């Protein structure tokens, strides 16, 4: 803010109003043939009031979005260490193949004879997922991780009903550390949620679990590796206990990246697990989505996988689209996220069985390296002592105890990282430690990048401990905007532009 400008721009950073504020006459960025205007079969249901949608010509629209884009951080710009999010490199090969003629442009309802390649691709992806996880069945259609959870929990629900226990088994157990989608999903399937305690080492407390098991328990929803970045050592015992109690084991596979190619969920007693293709298999996050959340199933749950399914008859593939057997109903309009299947399969084929195992190992190595480098300066509740390294999996968890008495909080550390050119880590999640900072570097960071990041974070931690709270509260200073007022946003919600309540665009432009 050292120098004001007349234009509102600052060097390369361009000021840009909302499209609704772009004055000038009515414009459009498409050229279409003149309609003949002769036919009308609308039955008089024409729009009455004219649409009040602004249009821009192509040069204006292009600039609008390019300018906006430059206010974003991105994986292509630097380390994106969001724990639980697996922000890894997105290969452009995958973008290219997803747009191929014959893949990107086919309609979901084309007759099967005209989409044999697409069906074969889905079958290939299914094969990779089943082999990697050691599970005998897979449903591709869920649209993201949470949708996958729904798919899995609905299958469990259906299995319970099939067993005649649908009305009695209504309780789902999940650790306090679990991701919000787990309890939300359980609730969305009509279950009640019961939280189980964690041990001081960040894992499920078997005693707490045992105490909670009973004839009304439908399932446990457990993330493994868990959201503290730790492998649940007792996972087999947990599975056995739950199974013995008549429940199912839903595994949240969001953190599958840590073990892909090395450990198979099928060997751990899992009954259903979703895989976020947009995490482990690198389909781009796209500023919030889309993703894809295929679910692998055990033999016990396989019959309850949803529609549609792919079947083969005489070497010809087709969808089975209508109710049969015990299949769960359809979870979305068509057959899921084909665009993501293509990318994920290209990613898998590129890595191969050898490369995928290396992915897991490098992801774990990178996280442990950061844990080891940062531990002396921050506080790692599950990281072991100075002399003993307790390994994490793909992400390293810190709490805010090293900030005690400094007046600096977790969120201040995050904002200070922004000034250093980094996207902050995941903050205040999981809930099991105070002021959590969860750092997941992924395997696509080089040692040099990790060192640069660690050096910056160490410097920030030292600065915090040296007592410079005011400077922290002022951060970030170097981002396109400074700290934003969340409370105001929530108290006086303004969720859309409106002519009446709009800020003066002239003022906005000059901001």
């Amino acid at each position: 803010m050292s120098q004001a400008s007349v234009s509102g721009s600052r060097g390369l950073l361009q000021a840009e109003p909302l499209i609704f504020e772009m004055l000038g006459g009515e414009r459009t960025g498409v050229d279409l043939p003149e309609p003949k205007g002769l036919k009308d079969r609308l039955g008089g249901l024409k729009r009455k009031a004219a649409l009040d949608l602004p249009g821009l010509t192509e040069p204006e629209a292009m600039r609008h979005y390019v300018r906006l884009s430059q206010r974003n951080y991105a994986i292509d710009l630097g380390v994106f260490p969001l724990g639980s999010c697996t922000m890894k490199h997105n290969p452009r090969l995958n973008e290219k193949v997803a747009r191929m003629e014959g893949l990107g442009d086919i309609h979901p309802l084309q007759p099967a004879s005209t989409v044999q390649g697409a069906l074969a691709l889905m079958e290939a992806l299914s094969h990779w997922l089943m082999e990697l996880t050691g599970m005998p069945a897979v449903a591709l259609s869920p649209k993201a991780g949470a949708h996958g959870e729904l798919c899995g929990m609905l299958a469990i629900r259906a299995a319970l009903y099939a067993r005649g226990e649908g009305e009695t088994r209504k309780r789902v157990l999940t650790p306090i550390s679990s991701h919000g989608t787990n309890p939300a999903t359980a609730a969305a399937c009509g279950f009640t949620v019961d939280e189980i305690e964690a041990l001081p080492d960040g894992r499920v407390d078997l005693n707490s679990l045992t105490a909670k098991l009973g004839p009304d328990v439908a399932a446990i929803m457990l993330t493994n590796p868990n959201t503290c970045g730790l492998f649940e050592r007792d996972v087999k015992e947990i599975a056995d206990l739950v199974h013995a109690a008549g429940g199912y084991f839903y595994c949240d596979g969001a953190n599958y990246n840590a073990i892909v190619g090395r450990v198979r969920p099928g060997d751990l007693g899992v009954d259903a697990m979703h895989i976020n293709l947009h995490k482990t298999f690198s389909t781009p996050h796209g500023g919030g989505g889309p993703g894809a959340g295929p679910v692998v199933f055990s033999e016990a749950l396989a019959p309850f996988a949803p529609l549609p399914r792919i079947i083969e008859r005489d070497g010809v593939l087709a969808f089975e689209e209508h109710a049969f057997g015990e299949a769960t109903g359809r979870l979305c309009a068509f057959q899921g996220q084909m665009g993501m299947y293509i990318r994920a399969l290209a990613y898998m084929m590129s890595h191969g069985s050898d490369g995928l195992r290396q992915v897991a190992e490098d992801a774990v190595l990178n996280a442990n390296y950061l844990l080891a480098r940062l531990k002396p300066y921050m506080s790692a509740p599950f990281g072991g002592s100075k002399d003993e390294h307790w390994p994490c999996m793909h992400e390293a968890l810190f709490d805010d105890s090293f900030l005690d008495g400094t007046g600096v909080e977790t969120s201040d550390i995050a904002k200070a990282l922004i000034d250093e050119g980094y996207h902050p880590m995941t903050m205040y999640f999981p809930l099991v430690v105070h002021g959590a900072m969860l750092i997941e570097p992924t395997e696509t960071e080089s040692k040099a990048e990790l060192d640069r990041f660690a050096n910056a974070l160490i410097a920030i931690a030292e600065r915090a401990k040296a007592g410079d709270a005011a400077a922290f509260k002022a951060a970030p200073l170097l981002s396109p905007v400074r700290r934003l007022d969340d409370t105001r946003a929530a108290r006086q919600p303004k969720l859309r532009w409106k002519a009446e309540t709009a800020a003066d665009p002239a003022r906005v432009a000059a901001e």
Partner: protein
Amino acid sequence: MRYLPLTPDDRRAMLGVIGAKSIDDLYVDVPKAAQRSGLVDLPRAQGEAEVERAMRGYAKKNLSPANAPFFIGAGAYRHHIPASVDHIIQRSEFLTAYTPYQPEIAQGTLQSIFEFQTQVAILTGMEVANASMYDGSTACAEAALMAARVTKRSKVILSGGLHPHYAETTKTMAGANGVVLIDSAPAIDGEAEVLKLLDGDTAAVIVQSPNVFGTITELNKIAEAVHARGALLIAVFTEAVSLGLIEPPGAMGADIVVGEGQSIGVALSFGGPYVGLFATREKFMRQMPGRLAGETVDADGKRGFVLTLSTREQHIRRAKATSNICTNSGLCAQAFTMHMTLLGRKGLERLALLNHEKACDLADALGAISGVEVLTPRFFNEFAVRTPKKADAVVEALAKRGILGGVAYSRLKGGAMDDVLLVCATETNTDEDIAAFAGALKEVLS
């Protein structure tokens, strides 16, 4: 491996810093029995060229709409997407960004979402819209759940014109959560039939216009009746372009409008990813599912945008959240909003008009074939015809002739109305395409 920057030396050095002898030391917590020493039984790593060749192999086994007269709609539509839209969604800063939880370095995505929400609200004639759902069908399910929350009732009535996939998805997703879904028999022009099932326990009725048969319906009367019973009207659309020409549900009394946004900027891609649109009245704002971007100011008083009202969401509210959705359809929404910005009122209206004209031409051409009857009384760009042979057989026979000639209604709804063929025409169809289709259909039926 080209995506893995660590060298063997790096790995050694890093293990040294950690104080581990080998990578196995870091996997100590995994039960021995579950540790695989060898590789999974799958092919080894391949180079870009090899992978591309394999993908081309899959692509070649499909019939691309670029190479066939194409008339399929029924929930997904072939429209021209400006090249600049794809350019923008491939920009690193949009493509490889996460959900904008750190607003100071995510204003690009956040402002785009804010503009998207406004466009969707304007398009549907509603007051507010969210940042997207997975697709139109899951948006429909979420609408049913929201209506139940708002009205504290559990019954939701589905029209006979609702896309069968939407009905089924709603039943799967909302049904498990205590909502009782009441289906109606397929009806080409029967959206108002839902009123017959309306009662004091009804949370909402769900109607679609244009419906799966293409029929456009006036909703005012339905809305009145529904409101009179204290229920909500949920209006669904699958073809967003239609809203450039027909009266929006928001202007006819709908309380929640949901639909598929794929038509604007999103590739067909065999069914996904698409983008669910979700709009409602301001008063129901805090009951909405999904993410919302809102306007605020920064520490310098400068305008900025943040994700807001997150106490509705799973990451804050957990089991009490309005929905379990987390990842949504961000990049498809980005494509939608850019395409919509390029269109503007002018472009969208003309695009809609062209679609309607092509569909009228198609109706004239098909209707002229003996034995074929156009069933849809009022339509936008798709309609149903009765064929003297089974519709699925007709579709297959047309495909053999290299024509993608619609979809059998019976494919959507297990066996129902098996002589009904759903066809669609858009601005991408030429007069020659239409003639080819009509010619082939004649042949197939003769």
